């Protein structure tokens, strides 16, 4: 231990102030092992220092091993893994894909600069390291040498620059714009040498590596001369390469013998596309597939106690947002919004709607899994007496129409919310619509989602809370369905996004949480788990909460 401390001391003398900050946090016990890994990875802390602090030679081996089920990565090579996933709803093009089926396929042959694991720890992938400048406005990434695309082309900085420019150029209509707009613009990615790129950001951003990781599923690195024909060859750098792809039916992949990292265990993977969840469950129970990539608890209750099936449960940040129009008379008084939030029995929702497979939310996008979430902020709980008091002070009960979408448990949640509100004299009538009708044109004035006086909307998982803090809540946010306009909040979010060190992030998170609990523009009652189901004899399947699935170490028996 003393010897290790000596080594740590030596390494720390050569470390950056930021690296030393996280080392201090770890030594002081304010950061646990997983937290250190996560933060160290985010700022590109050197592996020797990270390893020395954790007392291990390969720090990234730990979360990897933990993630594996059953035999810890000792599975037999050579299996054929059959996977059920949702049907990609359009062409498989990394620039445009925005659906669960498509993004699963992208990540089979494509790779990112960094990989975000199930534990939200970034691991080096096509980049070996990354470092910010002092204010986090420029991030420099070192690329892995000798990486070959499946067509033989060797990865270099030009490919990364072209990939990022393709995603950020507005005329390409990329899905990645919803993440990268205001963060990185076209022309902001610069080649320093063949194996180094620098990202010059639109504004300082402490979490930037997540924006070019697997978290941003469109950001797989493609060759500079990519012609929009990914579907023909799935030309990526990953451990599997394309065997065959039939739109609307399925795809198969085989091991890539030239992979830069450890060779994939399976000989072959076969993906079957399904239009719905129920047939996937039946196919798993009938032993026609070995893995179901993504399951909603709603409708999958039958699997929860099936001894032939293992469920991989990941805590995530996927949630439903109850938004109330802060600019409309009925909900303009924050006491009304607080009162409604106080009617909900959140632990009961977690049990009733998710069989316990969810975390209680505190009306803020800071989910419990985020390391920057300040857990000392008091949890809001059901308090009908206080709710009635607040509502009376604000003028008493009223009637309103809650508009929402038909998706998984949301209609049930809407009914529970309606019943809870009835207890304090707020009479909600429900309008449950098809998803396309609910979102409409997704523009203010022509979308039930953005215009409803009160509504419930689904939001998916993100590795960092940045997007969830800005788009639905900033004054200028394009998803701001509660029409929340609060200068103090806008300022805090700006500070949070720019903050690089965890302590600062956590401090601002606490202020944001406190402000949101007071204003309550939205109610976030739960964050549900991401569930992957595998046959009991299958090992080494590693999903991410974004809905990707890594089969590199998968084995049967």
């Amino acid at each position, binding site marked *: 231990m003393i010897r290790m401390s000596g080594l740590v001391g030596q390494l720390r003398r050569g470390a950056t102030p930021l690296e030393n900050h996280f080392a201090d946090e770890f030594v002081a016990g304010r950061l646990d092992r997983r937290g250190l890994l996560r933060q160290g990875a985010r700022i590109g802390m050197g592996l020797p220092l990270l390893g020395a602090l954790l007392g291990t030679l390969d720090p990234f081996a730990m979360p990897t091993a933990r993630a594996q089920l059953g035999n810890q990565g000792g599975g037999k090579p050579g299996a054929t893994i059959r996977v059920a996933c949702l049907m990609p709803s359009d062409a498989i093009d990394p620039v445009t894909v*925005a659906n669960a089926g498509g993004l699963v396929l992208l990540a089979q042959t494509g790779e990112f600069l960094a990989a975000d694991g199930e534990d939200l720890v970034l691991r080096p992938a096509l980049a070996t390291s990354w470092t910010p400048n002092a204010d986090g406005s420029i991030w420099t990434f070192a690329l892995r040498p000798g990486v070959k695309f499946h067509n033989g082309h060797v990865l270099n900085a030009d490919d990364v620059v072209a990939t990022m420019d393709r995603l950020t150029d*507005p005329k390409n209509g990329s899905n990645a714009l919803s993440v990268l707009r205001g963060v990185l613009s076209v022309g902001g990615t610069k080649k320093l040498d063949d194996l180094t790129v620098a990202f010059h950001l639109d504004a300082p951003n402490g979490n930037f590596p997540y924006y070019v990781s697997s978290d941003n599923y469109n950001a797989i690195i493609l060759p500079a001369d990519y012609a929009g024909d990914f579907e023909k060859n799935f030309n990526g750098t990953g451990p599997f390469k394309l065997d065959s792809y039939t739109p609307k039916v399925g795809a198969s992949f085989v091991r890539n013998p030239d992979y830069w990292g450890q060779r994939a265990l399976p000989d072959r993977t076969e993906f079957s596309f399904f239009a719905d969840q129920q047939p996937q469950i039946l196919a798993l129970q009938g032993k026609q597939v070995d893995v179901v990539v993504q399951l909603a608890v709603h409708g999958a209750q039958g699997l929860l106690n099936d001894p032939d099936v293992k469920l991989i449960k990941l805590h995530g940040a996927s949630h439903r947002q109850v938004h109330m129009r802060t600019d409309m008379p009925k909900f303009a008084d924050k006491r009304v919004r607080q009162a409604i939030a106080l009617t909900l029995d959140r632990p009961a929702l977690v049990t009733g709607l998710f069989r316990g497979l969810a975390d209680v939310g505190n009306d803020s996008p800071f989910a419990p899994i985020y390391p920057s979430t300040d857990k000392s902020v008091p949890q809001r709980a059901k308090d009908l007496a206080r709710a009635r008091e607040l509502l009376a002070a604000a003028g008493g009960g009223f009637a309103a129409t809650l508009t929402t979408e038909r998706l998984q448990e949301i209609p049930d949640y809407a009914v529970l919310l309606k019943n809870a509100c009835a207890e304090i004299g707020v009479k909600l009538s429900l309008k449950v619509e098809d998803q396309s009708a609910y979102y409409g044109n997704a523009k203010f004035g022509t979308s039930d989602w953005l215009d409803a006086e009160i509504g419930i909307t689904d939001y998916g998982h993100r590795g960092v809370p940045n997007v969830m803090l800005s788009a639905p809540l900033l004054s200028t946010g394009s998803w701001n369905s509660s029409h929340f306009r609060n200068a103090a909040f806008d300022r805090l979010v700006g500070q949070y996004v720019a903050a690089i060190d965890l302590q600062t992030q956590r401090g601002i998170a606490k202020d944001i949480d406190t402000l949101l609990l007071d204003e309550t523009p939205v109610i976030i009652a739960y964050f549900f788990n991401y569930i992957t189901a595998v046959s009991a004899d299958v090992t080494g399947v590693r999903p991410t909460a974004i809905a990707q699935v890594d089969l590199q170490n998968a084995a049967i028996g």
Partner: protein
Amino acid sequence: MGSDGAALAARLARRLALSLLTLVLLSVVVFAGGQLLPGNVGRAILGPLADPAAVAALNHRIGADQPALATYLRWIAHFAAGDMGESYVFRSPVAPFIGRAILNSLKLAGLAFVIVVPLSMAAGIYAALHARRWADQVISLAGLSLTVVPEFVSSILLILVLGVWLRWLPISAATRPGSSALDQLQHLILPAMPLVIVLFGYIARMTRAGTVEALESDYVRTAVLKGLPWRVVILRHVLRNALLPTITVIAAQSSYMIGGLVVVETLFRYQGIGSLILTAARGKDFPMLEAGILAVGAIVVVATLAADILATVLDPRLRSGGSR
């Protein structure tokens, strides 16, 4: 006989012309209906949370931002020349999608018909011959009860019992590319069963009614009285007349069997034309939607025409044109 043939040809020509008109009208209706669907292609691809500018840029890139009427007119001109166009959503030609889906649907419908038609007709005739006895009651009641079981119920039950518990049959209708005809047949048995269940009662009842009517007719009584053997009476006189309503029913069911099996296709993971049309409508994929619906329309038209011809062949009264 010569004038008979000419009348038949004229009749067929008229029917064919009407069918073409029907298809043109159908394409107009689909086009007009498509305008009512909410959203647009780019929005369907990028999802509700995508930036409006990104949606507009994508629509421009794939050509979905052209004026609707111009798109339609251009599409129909190409279609008439044999080019089905390119899917907006999949950004590749529509024809292979439609071709594969239609072929799949025909395979499934064909297998279901091959099983259900002889089975239900035999049951219907047997019931008619034993009218108002217990066998008749059982066949009629069972048929009627089965017909009202929705496919999603019968499908799930069949999958659970035969696929999950007993593991006798594969659950998925889709086979690996290049698998043998026997393998494909094995995969299609389970998905065909719910269709058999739905159609059995219907066809059996129609056959029974037709047979009962024929049995009570004057010509059958004459045939029996002039001493023809019972077998000959049944085969030559009863069956021939009992077939007419059955053929009509089968033709009328063809649109359902080809284009209306979305639930069965979803549950058994089968890429038929029904679910192809549904997803095309959801994604506002205009070329795919038009081509898909016209393909189903064409099949229905052909099936109806074939039923007409068959009916004409079976019923001499129809052949002489207007003497009925």
